[in-house]
C-alpha cells in the first residue's frame, strides 16, 4: 500500500518567494488572436497584483459555460502561457478540442469568464542552470513560453523545440523572444524536421542543464525512450507537465492523481509539474 499524505500545503511559495493564493475571480477577455491553425491566444484581465506572482507551470481553471447552463459542468484547466504584471494580464493558449475548449476559444473579446487560480506547482529552475531545453508538443507549448520568458529575464539560454502535425499548427516564432533558438518538427514534413520533436532532443542533451517538456502522452513516451537511450547518469533532469482530467483543481476530489515514487499525488496541487523519473508511467 502506498503511503499517503493528503494534507496539502496550500501556501505554495513560488520561485520568487511570493506566496501565491488561489481564488475564484471574474476575468475579462481583452483580446483574441488566432494562432496555430484553429487555436487562439486569449488575453485576460487579472485582479490587481496577481500577474507578478504567477509562475511558469501554473494553470487556471476556467468555467466554460454561460450563467444558467450546466454544460459543460466542470471547469477546464489551462496552463498560463504568459503573464504581464505591467498590464495586469495573462494569456492562455486554447486549442478547440471538445465542448469546453471550443466554447472558450470562440468567445469574443469583452466576455467575462469565471476563473479559479492560480493553481498547481511550478517548474523549478536550478539556480546554477545556464542552458534550458524546452520540448513542446501542440498546445503543450503554453507553459514553456512563460518559462522561457522568465528564464531569459534571469539571463539563461533557451532552446525551444516544438512539434506539431503540420507547419500551420506550430507556434509562430514571433511568439518567442528573439534570442531563443527555435527548432521545429512536423508530422508531415511541411516545416523543419520530418518526424517527432523528440527526434531533435538527443543533440541538445549535452548542452542542456535541464529539460522541460509538455505535450501529449505519445510525446512523453518517446521522450522517455530518448532519455533512456541518450542520457548519462540520469542527467540532465527532465521536468514534465502532465495532463489529467480534473474536477476540483484544489486537491479535494482525488480525481487527478499521478502515481509517483513518493505515492499518489494530486496533479492539481502537488503537480502538474513532475520530475519525469519520479513518475510511475
Amino acid at each position, binding site marked *: 500500500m502506498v503511503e499517503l499524505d493528503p494534507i496539502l500545503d496550500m501556501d505554495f511559495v513560488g520561485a520568487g518567494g511570493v506566496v501565491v493564493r488561489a481564488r475564484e475571480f471574474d476575468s475579462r477577455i481583452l483580446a483574441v488572436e488566432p494562432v496555430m491553425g484553429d487555436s487562439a491566444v486569449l488575453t485576460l484581465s487579472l485582479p490587481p497584483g496577481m500577474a507578478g506572482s504567477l509562475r511558469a507551470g501554473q494553470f487556471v481553471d476556467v468555467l466554460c459555460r454561460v450563467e444558467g447552463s450546466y454544460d459543460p459542468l466542470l471547469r477546464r484547466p489551462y496552463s498560463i502561457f504568459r503573464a504581464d504584471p505591467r498590464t495586469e494580464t495573462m494569456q492562455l493558449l486554447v486549442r478547440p478540442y471538445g465542448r469546453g475548449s471550443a466554447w472558450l476559444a470562440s468567445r469574443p473579446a469583452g466576455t467575462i469568464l469565471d476563473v479559479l487560480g492560480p493553481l498547481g506547482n511550478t517548474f523549478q529552475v536550478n539556480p546554477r542552470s545556464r542552458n534550458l531545453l524546452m520540448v513542446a508538443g501542440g498546445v503543450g507549448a503554453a507553459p514553456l513560453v512563460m518559462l522561457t520568458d522568465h528564464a531569459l529575464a534571469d539571463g539563461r539560454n533557451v532552446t525551444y523545440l516544438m512539434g506539431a502535425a503540420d507547419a500551420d499548427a506550430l507556434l509562430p516564432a514571433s511568439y518567442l523572444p528573439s534570442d531563443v533558438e527555435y527548432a521545429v518538427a512536423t508530422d508531415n514534413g511541411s516545416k523543419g524536421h520530418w518526424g517527432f520533436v523528440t527526434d531533435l532532443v538527443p543533440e541538445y542533451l549535452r548542452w542542456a542543464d535541464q529539460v522541460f517538456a509538455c505535450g501529449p502522452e505519445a510525446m512523453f513516451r518517446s521522450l522517455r525512450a530518448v532519455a533512456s537511450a541518450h542520457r548519462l547518469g540520469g542527467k540532465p533532469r527532465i521536468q514534465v507537465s502532465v495532463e489529467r*482530467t480534473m474536477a*476540483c483543481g484544489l486537491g479535494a476530489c482525488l*480525481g487527478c492523481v499521478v502515481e509517483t515514487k513518493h505515492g499518489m499525488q494530486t496533479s492539481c496541487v502537488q503537480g502538474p509539474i513532475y520530475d519525469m523519473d519520479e513518475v510511475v508511467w
Partner: protein
Amino acid sequence: MRWSGEGSVGFASRENRSLPSDGETDGRRLMAAPSLAVDLAPGNPRELVLANPVIAASGCFGYGLEYAEVMDVQRLGAFVSKGITPKPRSGNPMPRITETPAGMLNAIGLQNPGIRGFVKKYPKLWEAWKVPAIVNISAESVEEYAMMARILDEQPGVAGIEVNISCPNIAAGGYCFGWDAVMSADVTRAVRAATTLPLIVKLSPGAVDIVSVALAVEEAGADAVSLINTLVGMAIDVRTRRPVLANATGGLSGPAVKPIALRMVYQVAVAVRIPVVGMGGIMGLNDALEFFFAGANAIQVGTAIFAQPGMLIRLIDDLEDWLRREGVGSVREIVGVALPAGLPTRQAATEADVEIDFAAAVAAG
C-alpha cells in the same frame, strides 16, 4: 425535543410554525434575520446543531482544508470529510473521473489515509474550527464500521459520523450494505452501540426499496439519514471502444441526478421521523428549496463545489435573503411543505418519544 438556548432547534414542523423563532416575538420576526439553524440529532444529548442547513458533501470537500483559501469554510453549516476506511487505500487506477451531460462519473476508490492515519491529523486541526466536521466512514464488514466509530467517539474535533453504506459487504459476497434493509440496520446498530456521537446514515439510491432501508436504520438508532449517494453509471469512449473510467463503472452525481434524488428525499421524508439531509445535483438556491420543500431538514452540496466553490457561501446568503423576502422566520418552516396534506409527517415526535427511541436503540445495540 429541546427548545432551550440560542440556535438549539428541533425539526421543522407544521405544528411548530406558530412558535416564535429563537427569542423573537412574532411581531418583530419578519423584520429580523430569519433563523437558519437546524438540529440534525434532536434525540441525541451530544446534539448536532448547525448554524445553517448548508453542508459540503463527502468526497467533494476533502478534509475542509483544501477549500480554506478560496472560501470561508467556517461559515458552512457543516462539512463532511472524504470517506475514511479501516486501512489506508491508494484508490482506483486512472482515469477516475469523467464528465457526462450535466453530471460527472467518479470512481475514486476511496483513496484515504485509513482511520488511524486520519485521526492523527485532522481532529486536532478541526478542534479549533467553528464549523462542525462530520466524518464519513466506509467499510466492508459490520465489525469494521463499529471499530471506526469507536475510535471516532473519542476524537474532540469530530461533531458527528456519516455512515456510507454504499459499500460491498464481504460477508454477503460483496452485495452492497445499503441495498438491503437488514444489512443497513446491522451496520447502524453496530455503529450506534460503538458511539454516542450524532449518527447520520447515508442511504444508497441503489436500494431495492430506499424507504424500507430508511425506516430500518431509523429503528436501529440513526439520528438522521442523508441521501442520495451517487448512482452507478458508465461512459464509453467511442474512439477506443472501451469504458472511459479504468474502473469501468462510476458514481453519477450533479444536476443529472437531481430529479431522482428529490423523489427519494420526498419518499423518505414522508416515512421517517428523524431529520433528513437531502442532496444530489444541488447547484443553487432553487434546487436547495426544492429539497427543503420535499422534506429535507438540511442539504448537502457536492459536485457543484468543484465547478464554483463560491456557490456554497452564496447559497447560504441566498437562502437567508429568500426567507426574508418571503417573510418566513425560519428555514424549519419550509421543510416538507410539498408533502401532500394527509400523509403522515415525521415531525410530530415529542422530546420524550425521541429520547426513548434513542435509549431503546442504544440498548438494542
